[in-house]
């Protein structure tokens, strides 16, 4: 069938472009004598990969890219994900040959530049956290959580005891309880009080000698600072538990308060959130983890260390939890994050968090008359509304989210945190202009109005996208998870 869609992007699968015998990128001819191949029984008969030309490949992926929304296209207030602008200089520097083409097992004397960068990054992250010992090895936030909870496990093991429980507030990301389970602990959930803080009485009631620690997100996923954080820390430490702070929301905290000063023992960063590493369609991230000085002995091996003016990888750490991945982490993303930190410097980093909070509060006050605000107080870097007023009219939060797409705006995070009915979690970030925020506010106000007078338009959104609402139930009921020649459509 000829393409009748004009410039409306519509793209077959790469496999559907394939023609037997067609070739793409060519490799150089063999310049050494041929060796005898292994016996036939070791060799595969067919290699069922696509056969397409270079032109096919470039057009295919360019067209696919055009089916995406992205930070480079427009406003992306996806709560908890910190979709700030990603400066292009980060990538220009990360792509220097001197960072790109280094083998992880090269002799340390030949990679002093990258080791120095990693060492300095550890120091910057330690200073911002008020937790001086840092590992850069975790690949993403959840990987940092795993590292942190393994450190909690190692701490108790070093004291000759096995504890079984980790406390997690009911507003937490799903990664927290999932991580707890991976280390063999049981999660006990702590409810959130009417003021949006963790319920201190419930926390104290749950405390006993079987509690290994607490995982806390601060600011919480409600976008609110835990106002009783010092008391929480004291309570956990009273049973010799450790506090792990999920740093997903560190974009509100840089130069505002040091987690170490708040009594936190362990913190993970998401370099891809707070320090502007592009999110890449779902990763890669980088999940550096910082700990109290006396917990440094448990960090994964190796740690980047310095002796005199020589940088090296320190493997001599007998109490380490071990490696959490091969090699040293997502190094090229460390370069990106560190470039961002160096360019902003102290004042720029302080301005970053303060402005992120300013922007979220600006949205809060401009929308709170039309959307229900479950916790009416100053928020931090994100604001969580409830769409329950609109839901009563038959327009659900999902519909509001889809309608935003019609106005060229990426929807916020929806239906999370779970404790807020019809949640809309909006994180504008500091890199957005007042004009962008005002546009978003105007659109949200209009949608609230549409929910009253023209709900069908909202419920049938989006209207101008390459595909419209997709049948997710069908995808799960009859999973088609790969292309096959037989199933070609």
């Amino acid at each position, binding site marked *: 069938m000829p393409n009748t869609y004009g410039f409306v992007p519509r793209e077959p*699968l790469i496999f559907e472009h394939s023609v037997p015998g067609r070739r793409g990128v060519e490799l150089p001819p063999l*310049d050494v004598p041929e*060796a005898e191949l*292994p016996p036939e029984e*070791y*060799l595969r008969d067919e*290699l069922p990969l696509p056969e397409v030309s270079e032109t096919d*490949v*470039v057009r295919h992926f360019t067209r696919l*890219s*055009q089916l*995406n*929304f992205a*930070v480079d296209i427009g406003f992306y207030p996806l709560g908890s994900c910190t979709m700030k602008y990603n400066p292009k*200089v980060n990538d220009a*520097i990360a792509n220097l040959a*001197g*960072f790109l083409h280094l*083998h992880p097992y*090269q002799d340390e004397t030949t990679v002093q*530049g990258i080791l120095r960068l990693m060492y300095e990054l550890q120091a910057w992250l330690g*200073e911002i956290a008020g937790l001086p010992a840092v590992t850069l090895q975790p690949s993403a*936030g959840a990987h940092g*959580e795993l590292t942190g909870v*393994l450190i909690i496990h190692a701490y108790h093991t070093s004291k000759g005891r096995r504890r079984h429980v980790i406390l997690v507030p009911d507003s937490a990301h*799903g990664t927290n*309880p999932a991580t707890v389970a991976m280390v063999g*602990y049981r999660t006990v959930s702590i409810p959130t009080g009417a003021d949006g803080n963790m319920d201190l009485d419930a926390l104290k009631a749950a405390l006993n000698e079987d509690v290994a620690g607490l995982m806390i997100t601060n600011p919480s996923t409600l976008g609110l*600072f835990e106002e009783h954080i010092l008391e929480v820390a004291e309570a956990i430490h009273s049973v010799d538990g450790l506090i792990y702070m999920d740093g997903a929301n560190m974009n509100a905290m840089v130069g505002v308060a*040091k987690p170490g000063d*708040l009594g936190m023992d362990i913190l993970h960063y998401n370099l891809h959130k707070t320090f502007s590493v592009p*999110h890449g369609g*779902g*990763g890669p*991230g980088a999940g550096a983890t910082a700990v109290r000085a006396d917990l440094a002995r448990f960090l994964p091996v190796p740690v980047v260390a310095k002796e005199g003016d020589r940088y090296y990888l320190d493997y001599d750490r007998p109490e380490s939890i*071990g490696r959490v*991945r091969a090699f040293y*982490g997502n*190094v*090229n993303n460390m*370069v990106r994050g560190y470039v961002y930190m*160096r360019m902003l410097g*102290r004042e720029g980093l302080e*301005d970053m968090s*303060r*402005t992120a*909070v*300013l922007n979220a*509060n600006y949205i809060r006050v401009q929308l709170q008359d039309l959307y229900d605000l479950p916790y009416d107080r100053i928020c931090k870097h994100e604001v969580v509304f409830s769409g329950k007023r609109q839901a009563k009219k038959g327009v659900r939060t999902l519909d509001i989210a*889809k309608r935003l*797409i019609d106005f060229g705006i*990426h929807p916020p995070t929806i239906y999370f945190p779970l404790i807020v009915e019809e949640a809309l979690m909006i994180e504008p970030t*500091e890199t957005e*202009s007042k004009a962008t925020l005002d546009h978003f506010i105007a659109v949200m106000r209009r949608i609230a109005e549409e929910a009253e007078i023209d709900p069908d338009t909202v419920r049938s959104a989006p209207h101008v*996208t390459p595909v419209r609402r*997709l*049948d*997710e139930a069908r995808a*799960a009921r009859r999973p088609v998870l*790969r292309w096959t020649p037989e199933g070609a459509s």
Partner: protein
Amino acid sequence: MRYTPHTEAERQAMLKAIGVERIEDLFADIPAQVRFPSLDLPEGMSELEAQRLFAALAAENATVATHPCFLGAGAYYHFTPALLTHLLFRGEFYTAYTPYQPEISQGTLQVIFEFQTLVCQLTGMDVANASMYDGSTALAEAALMAVRLTRSRRTRLLISEAVHPEYRDVVATYSQGMDIELVPIPFDRRNGTTDVEAVRAALNEHTAALIVQYPNFFGQIEPLGQLGELIHGVGGHFVVSADPVALGLLKPPGDFGADIVTAEGQSLGIPLMYGGPYVGLFATRMKHVRQMPGRVAGQTVDIEGRRGFVLTLQAREQHIRREKATSNICTNEALIATAVTIYLSAVGRHGLRQVANLCYHKAHYLAQRLTALDGYELAFEGPFVREFAVRTPVPPAELNRYLWETHGIIGGYDLERAYPELKNHWLLTATEMNARADIDRLVEAVAGYPGSPAPSR
């Protein structure tokens, strides 16, 4: 440099709208004694200054692009076609996040669907996920999944010592909080592959899985058929960590009944980047899909009947299942998976075979020339693909230092680092990036090493 665009007038207008005087008033909820700490950090800089500062740091590193390199051991220097970098850095891929809103994420979702298909094609498996952090964590997740597949009734895992030592460390780290028994299986000193008799002796009805690498850490090709039969004989699962480039040549693990296949995808066009970000490939059987960790994209239709893709089977994942999830993974390596998808499309059926063949013949040429030198011989019998171990008459660490200092060559991996019993064993690799002249240069440099023992003849 700052990326906060407000003018002072705009800031004031916003503060007024909020009803506070100063931005600091928005932080009254922070305990006063810890609020606004002083950060002991230097001031910022412009883009030009940053470019200069970091270019100087980059220049302190010696790159494999300018020095012949024979290091592999889990990370390999391969050719990256220009189109890959060009396409990958399109902001539409690069500055998007997890495709939570499918209507405006069909690009990423279709790429994931294509990636899953390519991983299945390469490994000979039914179903693959959207990626794991790297090859080592993919293997660790496979180990945990193998235990879950037995409803955690079996907790004994056999892991070959011919699996990458760092991968074994990661499996140990991931399983330390669980009641999992990790049983190391020695390798056969003659052919460098997993000791089949030791496997047989270690198997019992509590064994959840056997974990091997293909080709293994020494480059040797494991007898997957035999090993698979053994573990299946006691009702356990067969977990294989594979080299995707070698799969351009070798029978895929799926043909030998593997239950889970993982791989490090870095070899598929991804630069070395001092160890990351890379990408973990993870594939399994359709019947096991509900225990698979990580995201997965599936095909469906929209309300107008058009084909489209969505994230699916999310009832396995942490944001739905929380403590009952199959893994805690959230952010994965989507962009590197995109790069792998572009690479495999660009080189295609013909090109990947060609890469595998170039690696094979160059590695064998290197092995043949090196073992013609006195005192150098292959450490193991049996076929290898692109990596091999040689016994050396002198410590590899000294040889590597000499090669670097006098010839600017990045030598091989000293196996004694991870295997104390393999003193004077050197692991070398060759890929399409090693021209014949570089290989000849390496061999001549080794021949000229002044510490070499005098020829015996």
